[in-house]
Structures are given as C-alpha cells and as structure tokens.
C-alpha cells in the first residue's frame, strides 16, 4: 500500500495515468490526511472537498474515455487564499473578505486545474500577504509542522505548511518580498519564486504589483519543475499585461550536472548581522556540496543590496495602499452597518475590515505617495532599484546563480518576534530579488544543528533563467539525498507522516 507522503507529484500523475490508483482514491487519501492532520497544523482556511472530488471524478472519467491525462492528473494541490477559484471563498485571511465568493478563477489556478490537478483547498496566509509568520491572518494561526510551537513563516505560511505536513503534494504561494522562499525554508520544502512575469498574476489579489509573483511549493525539486511547466506552458496570459512567454520544459535539463557552471557567493551577505551560525554553517555545506559536484565557486559583490529593505519598504507599501484602496465596502467586502454617510461607511468599513498590519502598510504608502514625500522617497527608491538591478547584472557576468540564505534564522517560536519593523528585517535575503524581478528558489538542506528545524539554501538567477535555477536546486537536493552537507532531504514532517493519506 502506498502513501501520499512518499509519492511525488510525477509519481501520482503516472500512477493515475497507468491505473495504479484512481484520482478519486488520491483525492480521498489527501482529504483523509487533511482530516487527521489539520487540527495540529491549521494550514487551511477552507478545504474544498467537493471541488476536489469533482475534479478527481472528471480526471477518472477522462481516463475511462481514453483521453490523454494532464501532467498533474490527480495531484492534490492547495492554493494560497489570495487566489481566486470559483466555488471557493477568497478571503486573503482578512475580515474584509471573510465572505467573498470568487467570481472568476485565477489564471495560475486554472492552469494547474487544466493540467489535471485536484484542488484540495485554500491555505492560510498573512492578511493580504503582509507579514512573515502567517500570524496576521484574521482567522487563526498556522503551526510549523516541524515544531507546532513555531511559526511556519509567511506570508504563504499555509501553503508551505500544507506541503510540509503532507496535506497537499503541491501548493501555490505568492512572493512579494520572500513570501514563498522564507516559509519554504521554515517548513523544509522547496519553494520557488519565478522571474517576474513568468506566471500570470491575473486573479491573484494584488499586494505589490511590481513585486508580486506566483510560484509553487513541493517536497521535491522535480515537483516544482512539473508545476512550473503547468503554470507557463500556455505562454503569456493575455489578461496580465506584465506576463511574458517563458515556456520551456523545466524538466528537460533538471538532472544535468552543474559541472563547469559557476555559483556566486556574496561575502557581505554571509557575514550579515542577524544571520545565525547554524544557517551560515548549512550554507557553507551547500557550497561545498555544489563544489564537489564540479561547480565553480566565485565571490561576487552586490554593493547596493544593503538598501534593498529600505527601497522595498517604500515601493511595497505604496503599491499596497493603491491596490487596497478598492476595498471600500461598496462592491464587495466588509461593510460597516448603519452608516449615515458614504465617507463614514468607507472609513469604518476599512478601519474594521482590515487588520493592524494592513492598515499600517496602507497608511505608510498613502504618506509616501503624497506630494513632496514622493520626490523624497518614492522616486529615489525606484532609482535605487535600478542600482540593485545593475548590481545583479554585473554579478551574473561572473556567475550563473548566486547562493545565499533564504532567511537569517530557522523558524522562531510564536511570540519571539513581534515588532513590525524588526520583522521587516527578516526579509533581508529575499527582498532584493523581488526588487529586480529575478527568479529565486529555496531548497531544503535538512535540519539545522542547533534548532533542529529545517534550514534551506536560496538560489537566485538572472531574469528568465528559471530552468537553470531548478537545475542547481536539483543538484543541491541530490547532494542532500546522497548525504552530502546536512543530509536528510525534504520528507513530510515526522509528526505528521503516516496520519491518513494511504492509498
């Protein structure tokens, strides 16, 4: 008897296609796993059992009719709750949208469904994706499957935790400043932020439009590559003006060796204040692992990266203020009852519909965009963005990818970090990549020596070189599988493995 815990997405799709098991059996197993594990992890805001079983039934019917099945046939997938899927609510983990029924389906969601995936539910997140721990969800917290007393990271914490706990084989998240890579690192799964424009943002509730990018979580690099294929195979989305065609077969060169390719390391980042010793040690081992596979290691400079956090916390709140202005309680969303005037209704709906961090970011953005302040912060921040982008371009003349931490520490305990501006600093390694739009991926290195929590390496690459990024990620994974570095791979978190999910 097989367990979903040990099957990759590719194996599930193959098993369904070959008739080893049906998509319905897979869906049922996934729902069983969710049933028995969810009370401890709380990764979901909504489990879409009906949609899952319907989709699985359709997949099985297609097979019975002799039709060719999609590459994700029967694979249980979870979606961050800022992605629309007709038949589900899309709440963004906010009271503002607590009752919002999706009126259309996001392109990224649709493409996974078109590939045959089974939608098991919508995952928890920081409210409107503002946060790094998923604690700002208006509904409940999500626990880290490796230690339920610790945060799963954020803002896509629910998606990362669902995959780490074996409740879904794949999940989608969105990454504005690290919101895929950081929770992937905290939860010990693979998480990829593709190049800006690679995946359509249509139907994903916007946070920072020039920074947001949708990407997949999986327990294996191959699964993430498979999801990337489904997300991009149809080319640019005509409904997203900023999406671009980058369709390549992400599986094609996945297992090619990295021998002769070059990994860049940024000494300044490896010595950064706040980077814990166990993360630094893990990174050193990862570099050694790549070197032992024949990759060349060089040092590169990113002189302006120290200002990335400042630039980000100018640009992101401004875009957030603008994007969230539409939530006025008129066309949808929380509406304050019994108001006598429109102004009263709008400002009370927004005051009571949004949580603290959502209000903070919007206030900051409204201030930074005001005349005079725009010239002092916003415009210069976009110029600094150019400098950071140029830094990366120069670095990539010397190397194929840059290896750096995904987060300065492993997952912390609930309550250990509460000050918002201190929290902002935890994005120090991921933010710069959103600033310049490049791709990045977080790959598990096993458990860290002190905290015994998952630790990851982050790989960053030039725009639209996401396939090469995956090839490097696979090399690290291979090294970890073979006991190089820390060893241990990326299994379902031990406390959750085996609880339901049997086929």
């Amino acid at each position, binding site marked *: 008897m097989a367990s979903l815990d040990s099957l990759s997405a590719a194996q599930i799709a193959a098993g369904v296609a070959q008739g080893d098991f049906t998509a319905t059996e897979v869906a049922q197993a996934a729902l069983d796993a969710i049933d028995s594990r969810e009370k401890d992890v709380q990764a979901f805001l909504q489990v879409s059992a009906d949609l899952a079983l319907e989709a699985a039934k359709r997949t099985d019917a297609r097979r019975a009719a002799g039709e060719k099945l999609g590459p994700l046939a029967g694979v249980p997938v979870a979606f961050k709750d800022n992605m629309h899927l007709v038949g589900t609510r899309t709440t963004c983990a906010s009271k503002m949208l607590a*009752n*919002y*029924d999706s*009126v*259309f389906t996001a392109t990224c969601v649709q493409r996974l469904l078109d590939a045959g995936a089974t939608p098991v539910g919508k995952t928890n997140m920081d409210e409107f994706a503002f946060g790094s721990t998923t604690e700002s969800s208006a509904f409940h917290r999500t626990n880290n499957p490796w230690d339920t007393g610790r945060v799963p990271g954020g803002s896509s914490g629910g998606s990362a935790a669902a995959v780490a706990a074996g409740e879904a084989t794949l999940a989608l998240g969105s990454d504005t400043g690290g919101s895929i890579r950081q929770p992937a690192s905290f939860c010990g799964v693979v998480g990829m932020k593709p190049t*800006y*424009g690679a995946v359509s943002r249509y139907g994903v509730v916007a946070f920072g439009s*020039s*920074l947001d990018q949708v990407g997949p979580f999986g327990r294996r690099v191959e699964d993430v590559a498979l999801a990337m294929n489904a997300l991009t195979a149809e080319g640019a989305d*005509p*409904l997203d003006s*900023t999406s*671009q065609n980058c369709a390549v077969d992400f599986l094609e060169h996945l297992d090619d060796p990295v021998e002769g390719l070059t990994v860049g390391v940024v000494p300044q980042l490896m010595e950064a204040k706040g980077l814990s010793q166990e993360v630094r040690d893990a990174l050193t081992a990862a570099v050694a692992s790549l070197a032992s596979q024949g990759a060349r290691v060089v040092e590169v400079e990113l002189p302006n990266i120290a*200002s990335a956090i*400042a630039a980000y*916390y*100018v640009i992101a*709140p401004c875009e957030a*203020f603008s994007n969230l*202005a539409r939530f006025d309680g*008129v*066309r*949808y*969303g*929380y*509406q304050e009852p019994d108001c*006598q*005037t*429109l*102004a*009263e*209704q*709008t*400002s009370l709906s*927004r*005051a009571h519909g*949004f949580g603290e961090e959502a*209000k*903070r970011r*919007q*206030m900051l953005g*409204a*201030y930074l965009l*005001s005349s005079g302040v725009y010239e002092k*912060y916003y*415009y*210069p921040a*976009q*110029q*600094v*963005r*150019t*400098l950071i*982008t140029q830094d990366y371009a120069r670095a990539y003349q010397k190397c194929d990818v840059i290896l750096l931490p995904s987060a300065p520490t492993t997952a912390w305990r609930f309550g250990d970090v509460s000050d*918002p*501006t201190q929290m*902002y600093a935890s994005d120090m390694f991921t933010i710069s990549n959103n*600033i*310049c*739009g490049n791709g990045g991926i977080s790959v598990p290195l096993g458990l860290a020596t002190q905290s015994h929590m998952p630790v990851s390496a982050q790989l960053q690459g030039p725009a639209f070189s996401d396939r090469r990024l995956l090839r490097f990620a696979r090399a690290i994974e291979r090294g970890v599988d073979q006991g190089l570095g820390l060893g241990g791979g990326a299994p379902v978190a031990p406390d959750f493995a085996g609880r339901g999910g049997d086929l």
Partner: protein
Amino acid sequence: MALSQDDVAQIADYARIALTPSELEQMTTYMNEAVDLLEPITHYDLDGVEPTFHPIGDLSNVMGEDVVDDSVRALPIDVALHNAGSTHDRYFRVPSILGDSEEDF
C-alpha cells in the same frame, strides 16, 4: 522631521481609515519608526539614474484588441452584485454622499 499625530490623522482621513485616539497614537509611533527605516534611500546621489518602475526589462506596448468578448470576463448581474453589502435593483447602493452638509460635488 517626525510626523505628528495631526499629520497622521490627515493621512488616515485621506486613506479612509478611521482611527481611535489610541490607534492614532500607535500609528504615529509606527509611521515614524518605519520612515526611519527608509533613511538609506535619502543618502544616495542618484543624479542621472533612471528609475525602474517596471521590473520587466524592455517589455512595452502591451495592448489588447478592441473585441467584445463576453465569454472571457463579463459577469452576469447576479454574480456582479453577489458580494456587495448593499444593492438596489440592478445597482450597487451607497448611503448619502453628502450627509447633511451643504457642499455639492
């Protein structure tokens, strides 16, 4: 120059976020801390540096065709109004825009 509570109250008024007095106080503290974090931006000499408003290389001139396509996105009336807090016939409804004030828009 630090933001005063009055400044923050004005921003809240503009952003249509009602704040209680204690929220206003906390928000003022937060805003000043957050703005301090942004200081590095003001230390650059950025003469002649082009801003990057769109991180997408040389993507430009993206346009769609002028063709009615009801099937792609159009919403039937019941779906369009479905999530609204208050409606009237086929309309979205809002309470009095001016209240008792005399000023016209």
